[in-house]
C-alpha cells in the first residue's frame, strides 16, 4: 500500500513539455506551441492524454487528436514509446502533401 502510494507519487505531474502544433491544430486559436503537463517516465500515450485535457470540450480538436501522431524532429513515435527527453515534440494531424 505504501509502495503503491510511492508509485502514484512518482507518476504525478512533474514537468511540462512543449508540443508544437501543425496543420488543422492551428485553427483552434492556440499559440504554435502548447505546454502539456506530464507525469515522470511518461509514455507518448500520456502526452496524448495531456493534450486531450488541453482540448477538453472541443470535440473537433479531440477527434483530430485521435487521428494524429506525435513525433520528434527525427521520427514519428508510437504511443507505447517513452516521451524522449530533450527533444522537440510535435503533434501531427493526418498528412496531405503534394
Amino acid at each position, binding site marked *: 500500500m505504501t509502495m503503491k502510494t510511492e508509485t502514484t507519487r512518482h507518476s504525478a505531474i512533474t514537468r511540462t513539455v512543449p508540443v508544437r502544433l501543425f496543420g488543422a491544430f492551428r485553427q483552434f486559436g492556440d499559440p504554435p506551441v502548447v505546454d502539456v503537463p506530464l507525469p515522470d517516465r511518461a509514455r507518448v500515450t500520456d502526452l496524448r492524454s495531456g493534450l486531450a485535457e488541453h482540448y477538453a470540450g472541443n470535440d473537433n480538436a479531440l477527434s483530430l487528436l485521435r487521428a*494524429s*501522431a506525435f*513525433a520528434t524532429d527525427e*521520427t514519428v513515435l508510437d504511443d507505447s514509446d517513452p516521451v524522449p527527453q530533450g527533444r522537440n515534440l510535435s503533434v501531427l494531424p*493526418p498528412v496531405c502533401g503534394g
Partner: protein
Amino acid sequence: MGKLATGIGVDLTEDALDPLTALEHCSAPGHGAADLFIGRVRDINQGRQVRAVSYDLHAVLCRNVFIEICNQAREQWGETINLWLAHRYGRLEVGEASVIAAASSRHREESFRACRFLVEEMKHRAPIWKQEHYIDGDSEWVQGHALCGHG
C-alpha cells in the same frame, strides 16, 4: 536545400519550385532517362472552387522523411540513381507547383518507378498539411493520411 548522399537532393522552400534545378540534379553521363513529376494547385477540389492553398510543414522532420524516402528508393532501384524531392510551403495560387519529384537512371524503368515512389511515399509519410482557400471566402484544412509510428 539539403543533400545527404551525393545524388540525393531535397528541398523545402517558400520560393517557387524550379523544374530545371530538379532536372539538372537528375542527370549524369551514364543516365539515359529522367522522370519528373510536378504537383500543382488545382482550381477545384471535391466540387469546391479553390482560389489558393496554404501549405504547412514540419521542416526538420519533413527533410528527414524526404531523405529517408530517397534512400529507400535507392535501395530498391540502385545506388546510382539520382533523386530529387522538393516541396513548397506558404500560400500558393492555382497553377503553382507544390511539389517536384524527379529521378534519373541508366534506363527508363528505374526512373519512372523511383519517381512514382517518391510521390506516393511523400503523400503518405511527409509531415505536410494543406488548407484550401475557396473563392467563397471560406478556408478549410484538408483531411489526410494518418501517420504511423516507426516500424
